[in-house]
């Protein structure tokens, strides 16, 4: 019988593989300046409904007032944004190295 996926992950977790910093950076949580479309709370940083579909720029190149407002409100509201407070990329990178 096939081994369970959970067992696979557990076994895999004990392994060491080469994980470049560039990959770990992709798993960094959203920072205050990032326009995440998944930030918790009703004051998330997703663009307002009247805004046209976004053709994207670089992840941190957020300068629009609306975007800044959204990101700030989420970051400053522990009751709705604090649960998913982003981890600094550097912490994640450090956590992966051992």
């Amino acid at each position, binding site marked *: 019988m096939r081994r369970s*996926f959970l067992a*696979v992950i557990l076994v895999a977790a004990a392994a060491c*593989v080469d994980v470049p910093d560039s990959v770990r950076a992709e798993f960094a*949580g959203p920072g205050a300046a990032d326009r995440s479309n998944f930030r918790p709370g009703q*004051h998330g940083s997703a663009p307002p409904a009247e805004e046209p579909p976004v053709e994207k720029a670089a992840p941190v190149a957020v300068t629009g007032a609306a975007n800044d407002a959204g990101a700030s409100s989420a970051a400053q509201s522990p009751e709705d944004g604090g649960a998913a407070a982003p981890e600094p990329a550097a912490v994640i990178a450090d956590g992966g190295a051992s």
Partner: protein
Amino acid sequence: MKLARLLLAGLALGLAACGTMSLPPVRVLDKRTDEAHKPTYNGLPIKSGQLVLTESPDATSYVFVLIPKKFHAFTHVAIISVEDGEPWVYDVTGEVKTFPFKKRLMDNVTGKMYRRRLFEYVAPNLHAEIYDPPPGADGEKIAAYARQKFKDGVEFDSYFDFHDHSKLFCSELVALAIESAGGGHVAPEPSNPNPSVVEGMRWLGVPPGEALPAGRFADPARYVAALGQFPTRTAAWSYFEAKHELHRRFTMDQRLGFLLTISGNGQVDVRPEISTFAARAGHLFDNDPNPPEPGDPRIRAAVRKLAADMFGPFPADAHAPGTEPEPAPQPVAAR
């Protein structure tokens, strides 16, 4: 050499989309019965050559959904072969092999074809649906192809190369079986151009640019039956619509880390607000006396409203870059 606790075993197997874990007993949620679909097994209209699509309960299913440019439900696909009156399921799947581990992640993934009873196969999954094969494909020939590959001992292709059939991954097996049975060629489709997804695929060694998601074989017109852990098919497809909404919101500036987390030892998991969103979506119609059927625009409208409530508004006509705009959902009727 940089050493890190394996963070992407889930991602690696996520691409395989082939995982299982123990879950409660399977229940039959729904079945289609008509002149062409008469019950053959436990009340289900099962025939050789039908396809079983499953959704893994693992966090990695949230990775799978981001790989193709276009959204698809389900994480895995397999083939039914009725033998002496009992349906068996053939699939090819991968797992992380035992020590020694290799530096290159996907070199640690190995696998083969399996043959299991239908309910045994479905049990570890969150949801499963059975579909007829495409028009023109002979179901008996599809099943025969799967049996032959099982007999041949074909290996799992951990690098998901659709153009080299010496090893196979799950949807590649099904595509080849359908083609061998006269059902036409099933080609890969574009993968997600999101830079974060591309970076992940490049690191894994999986060719960026194309994907063959299991959900390609879930044609509503060929639907046969649904089984799994959800109480209703409406709940299951509300959950899938939540995954669809995550895909839609994963625009070019979004990173994998907006949905996924990495623990101290590098294991990948889903951010709690993301899994909560999907779970809540599955309950949107729990108290609806007239719940919508899958495909009813009320499901999309309700899920998008939930997403707006949890994550903030998002343009109704927005869609992942490079994909076709989707029809706007109809207003949810007050009930």
